């Protein structure tokens, strides 16, 4: 379902997923917000990084990384709550009662979040993300991407505020803000680039500058090469597939069973004949209770003559737990075979 939604969105609006909803972007945005609050704006951060090591610099870096690590740890815990009981994992982790397996996974996802959102950031989108690579095949002339209006903007050049536009210059005042706000550090004025994540920040920055100079907005804007609508076949094809997937997903959620049972044959002996002349087979019964309530199970059989089952009568499985039971199946042999 997610894949078809992505395909549809990519064909219509390009890498809009990357710029607005990708977890990498969401966490990077949060980490950047924290960085801005602690170390200051862009100029202050550049200055701080270039300055020599001091107690102030060390303190700011220490606070920033501590907050980043805390956010990463919370993220790791939330992620693991999809795989172990959500209510319990937070309590267990704080009281140091989680198993080493769970602790290991939480710390692994903590590390992944920290490294991705604080260090790697845009490099993930540029060099590592497979989606960024293969989505280009979904682009067409009608796909909307962040575009610089070359005809209106060129020739670019600086000018004073409230000054009449110098002859021979376009609307671009070459303030470079579109480059400074870009999360991947590209210059959109160089044309469509594979690095561009369609976040629209350069549009915001340019619109702000255009307003200051009393020029029309949308020098940089979402536009397609042909400014036409998408191919209808592709559009409705993606929507149809998406709806089918939504239907399957809803059906799966509605019909999901509350328990799983697996039966494993005892590997010690194929069978054995007991003193009553019965053939005896042992099985291991595993019951997984996926519900939030205690499960009571009863074992029975039908349609078989001369069989009987021996097992615990009350099969009880705690919520979200698995229980093992030994079940023995007896079959009465026919009289003519008993003395063989």
């Amino acid at each position, binding site marked *: 379902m997610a894949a078809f939604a992505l395909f549809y969105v990519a064909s219509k609006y390009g890498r809009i997923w990357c*710029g*607005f*909803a990708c*977890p990498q*972007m*969401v966490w990077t*945005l*949060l980490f*950047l917000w924290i960085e*801005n609050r602690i170390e200051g*704006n*862009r100029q202050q*951060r550049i200055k701080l*990084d270039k300055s020599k090591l001091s107690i102030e610099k060390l303190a700011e870096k220490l606070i920033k990384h501590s907050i980043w690590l805390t956010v990463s740890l919370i993220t790791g815990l*939330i992620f693991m709550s*999809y*795989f*172990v*009981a*959500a*209510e319990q994992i937070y309590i267990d982790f704080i009281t140091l009662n989680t*198993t080493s*397996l769970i602790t290991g*996974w939480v710390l*692994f996802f903590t590390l*992944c979040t920290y490294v991705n959102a604080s260090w790697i*950031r*845009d*490099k993930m989108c*540029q*060099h*590592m993300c497979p989606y960024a690579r293969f989505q280009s095949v979904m682009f067409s002339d009608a796909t909307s991407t962040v575009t610089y209006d070359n005809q209106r903007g060129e020739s670019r050049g600086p000018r004073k505020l409230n000054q009449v536009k110098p002859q021979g210059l376009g609307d671009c005042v070459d303030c*470079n*803000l579109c*480059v*400074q*706000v*870009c*999360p*991947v*550090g590209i*210059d959109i004025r160089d044309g469509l680039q594979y690095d561009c994540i369609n*976040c*629209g*920040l350069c*549009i*915001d*920055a340019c*619109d*702000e500058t255009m307003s200051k100079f009393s020029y029309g907005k949308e020098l940089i804007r979402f536009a397609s090469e042909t400014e036409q609508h998408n191919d209808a076949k592709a559009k409705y094809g993606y929507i149809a597939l998406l709806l089918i997937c939504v239907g399957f997903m809803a059906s799966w*959620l509605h019909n*999901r069973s*509350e328990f799983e049972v697996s039966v494993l044959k005892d590997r010690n002996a194929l069978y054995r004949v007991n003193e009553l002349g019965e053939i005896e087979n042992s099985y291991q019964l595993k019951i*997984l209770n*996926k*519900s*939030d*309530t205690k499960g009571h199970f009863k074992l029975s059989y039908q349609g078989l003559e001369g069989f009987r089952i021996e097992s615990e009568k009350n099969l009880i499985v705690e919520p*979200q737990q*698995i229980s093992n039971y030994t079940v023995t199946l007896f079959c009465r042999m026919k009289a003519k075979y008993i003395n063989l």
Partner: protein
Amino acid sequence: MVQKTSADKYNVIFQTKAIDDKIYIKEQKGFYQSIRRYLSVGLMLLFIVTPFIKYQGNKRFYSMLKHRPKSSLLLFLPARFTDFYLPLYYGGLCLVLCRQ
């Protein structure tokens, strides 16, 4: 910011280092940034509450990792990251590491 020179078209491979320099992003306000922020908050809240969502009295987005060995496919995540990290710094290591 990457400074381009006329020689860049002949130095495409070496340009990677310049691209990989730290990017200092200027904080920007505006229409698209607001959408990103509100959407991010919404997505984060969804990420937090989804494991608690119940339908017909039971959780629906819950994988029960410790009872389901198949869910341990997550173990492949480190391999995936290694696959991307190594080429990032050392290029293709196919000749040395690939099973083929």
